[in-house]
Structure formats: C-alpha cells, structure tokens
C-alpha cells in the first residue's frame, strides 16, 4: 500500500492505523482534517475535493519520505479524500509512529503542513446561501493586496 494515497471512499481508520503498528514504536500521532461548517466567515454546507492525482501521489510520497528521514519515524502515511464531502467528514488523515512521541508528533505535523501546501489538490466550498467557490490556498489572504502574479511558480 502506498504511503500517500487518495481515496474516493470514506476511510477505514482502523486499517490506516493498523499499517503503522510496529513493535519498536512507543508513540503514534495522528491528525485528521474534518469538514467544518464555516470557513472565513461563511457557512459551509458541503465541499468537493479534486486532485491532480498522478503528481499528487508522487509529491505526497516525497513528503512522507522527507518526514521519515528528518524525524526518524518508523512508519508514516497519509490519505486524502477526493470527491464530495459533507460536514464532519474526514478530508485528510495523517499518521506516524516512532520509538518516542517527539518524533511521531513532529513527523505528523510536518506531513500535514507540507501536504496542504505542496500536493495539488483543490477544494470547492458550497455555501448555505447557495454560492460556491474554489478555495485558493491557506496563504492567499496574505497576498490579497498584491497583484496576482502568474507563471512564476
């Protein structure tokens, strides 16, 4: 099983977690992103995730390899949902197991942060008022009053 993958179906958390069990590990940290009922002051009803899967899987695997290398964790993985999600649904899951908890926490945090910024996946929010929109990125607000720059990745 790939350490990073996309899923069209709800996750089986016990299976995800089970893959990370290891007799050398005393600490296991996990993170879940859930669909909230609001974002930036608007009431969200449901949302859709769409991914550029081929590149996303490669980049996700790189992130996990980096985390394992940096923090010395024994096992780590991440699954991101795609498709239509309802309030409260699990959108992304990350887990990391390590001999000690420091490393498990650090790896888990690193993976979710990097996934959110590097893996090509997009979220369309459907609001209670009937409107909808693609959420650009977590950092877009910072660039709000600079002119959009294209073509310079």
């Amino acid at each position: 099983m790939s350490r990073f993958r996309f899923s069209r179906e709800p996750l089986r958390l016990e299976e995800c977690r089970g893959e990370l069990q290891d007799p050398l590990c005393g600490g296991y940290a996990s993170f879940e992103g859930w669909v909230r009922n609001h974002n930036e002051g608007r009431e969200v009803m449901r949302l859709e995730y769409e991914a550029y899967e081929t590149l996303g899987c490669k980049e996700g695997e790189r992130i996990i390899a980096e985390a394992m290398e940096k923090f010395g964790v024994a096992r780590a993985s991440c699954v991101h949902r795609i498709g239509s999600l309802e309030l409260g649904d699990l959108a992304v899951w990350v887990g990391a197991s390590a001999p000690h908890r420091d490393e498990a926490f650090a790896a888990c945090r690193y993976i979710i942060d990097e996934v959110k910024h590097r893996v090509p996946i997009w979220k369309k929010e459907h609001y209670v008022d009937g409107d909808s929109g693609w959420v650009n990125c977590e950092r877009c607000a910072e660039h709000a009053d600079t002119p959009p720059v294209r073509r310079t990745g």
Partner: protein
Amino acid sequence: MNEIKVEYFAALREHTGLGAEQVRTAARTAAELFAELDARYGFPEMGRLKVAVNDEFGDWDSNLADGDSVVFIPPVAGG
C-alpha cells in the same frame, strides 16, 4: 509546432469546460503556452500558479517538446 496535452483541474477545468485537450502550438515554453491559452480562454485570476510538465513540477521557461503533457497548477487547498 508541437502537439501538447494540456490537463485542467479545479477552477481551470470548470472555466474551460475541459478535462484535457490536445493543443497544436508554436509556444516554446509553458509560459508561452499559458499566455496563448489565457488569450483564448481568459483564465480567472488566481494568484501564483505552478506548472507541471510530464507529471513532474516543471519550469515555466524550459522548452517544451512534442508530446509533452502540461498542467497549470493553481494555489492548492488540501486538508
């Protein structure tokens, strides 16, 4: 002229109404290809885009080759 496969995701997919298309183009780089397609479709403004060439992150200014695939990557919003 090169034959390039362009795939669209998210806001670009909805805007163009296309999942993918084959483009016959004189554009030498991804940047030139983007300008050409922007002129055709009038892409929405969406901040800083990245580009992928043949399913790897690429350089806007590297030369494209016949048969390459290109994806324009709007700012991501996972998690």
